[in-house]
């Protein structure tokens, strides 16, 4: 029988006057979240989505700042530094893993059209761990951790301290590599298919497969539209995907003469763990690592703005794929919801 206190609580809860929902405020907050290219989202999201060690267990970390615990179908992970490459390009991909401490077998058997959209290696320089994020048609979404078995610890933790937060995983071994996949992203059938394909391939063949899945453009904002953008991006040349909020910032950026720079590659360190969770917000990029190369200059920004303005699309809720050709700029507006992709061609100046 419900208690009188419980009934009174429910009545009091219902009696709370609810202020009107300000949908614009929610949209703005959502947009801010989407466009947040800082560490918090990427590290917490892409870094495995499996458990992180508690602060008091930091002392047991070995192996150059990267440790992985696997116990049955649960895992925990900890690192102190990484190199993070968003929308890796071929040269960046090869350089990041050139000195890996194990023969990396990349995921194969992935669906057609799946793209490698994000890559993290740790520790930088001689990675013992490679983390890869794929997106593909049909909402395909998969994250993989490929690790040198030498960094995988026994299930037992160091003495004392907080207990680690283990997350559910699928894991298997391929040659001298441990593969870890956060539970729930892939179906059992997909995991079986990928595991089987990885066992039959070689490091070189799998690397070729991974490189064939690199995006033919760079992504400066969120990765929600990469699969759509991949359908339109020319296979050669220089293409850049910018997200909704960056599109809407164009007038301000043009006025401030603030071009888009390539900040995709970052080296991160100083990871902080609080109450057993990774606190990415307090981690900072190591200065001087980002390339800062201009990838959409003032003329390109003006071309995008003028094309969108001419078609009443400047306030559209869409990402933009920009391609700089020899004689013209090509601009694709990719709506965030349903809707047709629009293409505009502007003579290059």
């Amino acid at each position, binding site marked *: *029988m*419900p*208690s*009188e*206190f*419980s*009934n*009174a*609580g*429910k*009545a*009091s*809860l*219902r*009696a*709370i*006057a*609810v*202020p009107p*929902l*300000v*949908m614009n*405020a*929610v*949209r703005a*907050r*959502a947009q*801010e*979240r*989407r466009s947040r290219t800082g560490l918090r989202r990427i590290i917490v999201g892409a870094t495995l989505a499996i458990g992180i060690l508690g602060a008091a267990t930091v002392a047991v970390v070995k192996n150059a700042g990267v440790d992985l615990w696997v116990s049955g179908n649960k895992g925990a992970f900890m690192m102190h530094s990484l190199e993070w490459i968003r929308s890796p390009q071929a040269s960046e991909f090869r350089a990041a893993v050139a000195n890996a401490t194990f023969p990396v077998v990349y995921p194969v058997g992935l669906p057609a059209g799946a793209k490698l959209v994000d890559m993290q290696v740790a520790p930088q320089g001689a990675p013992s761990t490679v983390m890869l994020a794929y997106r593909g048609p049909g*909402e395909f*979404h998969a994250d993989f951790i490929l690790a040198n078995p030498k960094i995988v610890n026994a299930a037992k933790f160091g003495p004392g301290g907080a207990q680690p937060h283990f997350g559910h995983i699928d894991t298997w071994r391929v040659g001298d590599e441990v593969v870890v996949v956060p539970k*729930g*992203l892939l179906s059992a059938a997909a995991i079986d298919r990928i595991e089987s394909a990885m066992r039959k391939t070689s490091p070189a063949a799998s690397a070729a497969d991974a490189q064939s899945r690199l995006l033919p453009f760079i992504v400066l904002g969120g990765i929600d539209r990469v699969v759509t953008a991949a359908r339109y991006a020319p296979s050669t040349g220089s293409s850049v995907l910018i997200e909704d909020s960056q599109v809407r910032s164009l007038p301000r950026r043009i006025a401030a003469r603030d071009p888009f720079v390539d900040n995709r590659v970052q080296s991160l360190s100083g990871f902080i763990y609080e109450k057993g969770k990774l606190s990415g917000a307090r981690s900072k990029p190591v200065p001087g690592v980002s390339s800062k190369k201009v990838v959409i200059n003032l003329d390109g920004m003006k071309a995008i703005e003028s094309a969108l303005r001419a078609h009443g699309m400047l306030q559209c809720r869409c990402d933009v794929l920009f391609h700089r050709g020899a004689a013209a700029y090509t601009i694709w507006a990719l709506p*965030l*919801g*349903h809707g047709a992709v629009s293409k505009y061609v502007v003579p290059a100046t």
Partner: protein
Amino acid sequence: MNQLLSSALAGDPAALEGLIHEIWPRCYRLAAAVIGDRALAQDAAQESCAIVYVRLRSLRDRSAFDAWLYRIVMREATRVRRRIPANVPLYDDASFAPDETTSIDVWRALAQLPEDQRDAVVLFYFHDLRTEDIAAIVDVPHATVRTRLMRARERLRASLGDYANDLHVQQGEVQHYAV
């Protein structure tokens, strides 16, 4: 709401906004109940809705939506109430007027509880959640939730008197994620 959720999960932006409208009162009232401050509750509820807006499509299991939403709101509530300075009175505006149909002033009682116990009490007694579900929502062991409830009941006896006598854990009587 089921249809809205299905359509939103399928990528329909209008359904997503409809879903946000649908969940807004739940989010706000839960945040208000555990925070005790109207403005901060609105902040937490708006941020929770923004998270749903951005991340709904990452939800793989449709049936897990309610639990997922509880986790989001509780996490945001925990985040924003860090801004409350010490010794600021909670449940102190007209939003938290005592319910006229009962002689129990639940808000005054909740104000006397530490935050973790208040969370457990609101989720258990006001939302009829099971202790194991609360444990998953606030990310603590099951035993910790039961301990928090036990300690909360001890404190509540001081403010509720006889009304607290029937505050025992009633595992068999609660529904799963009923709101």
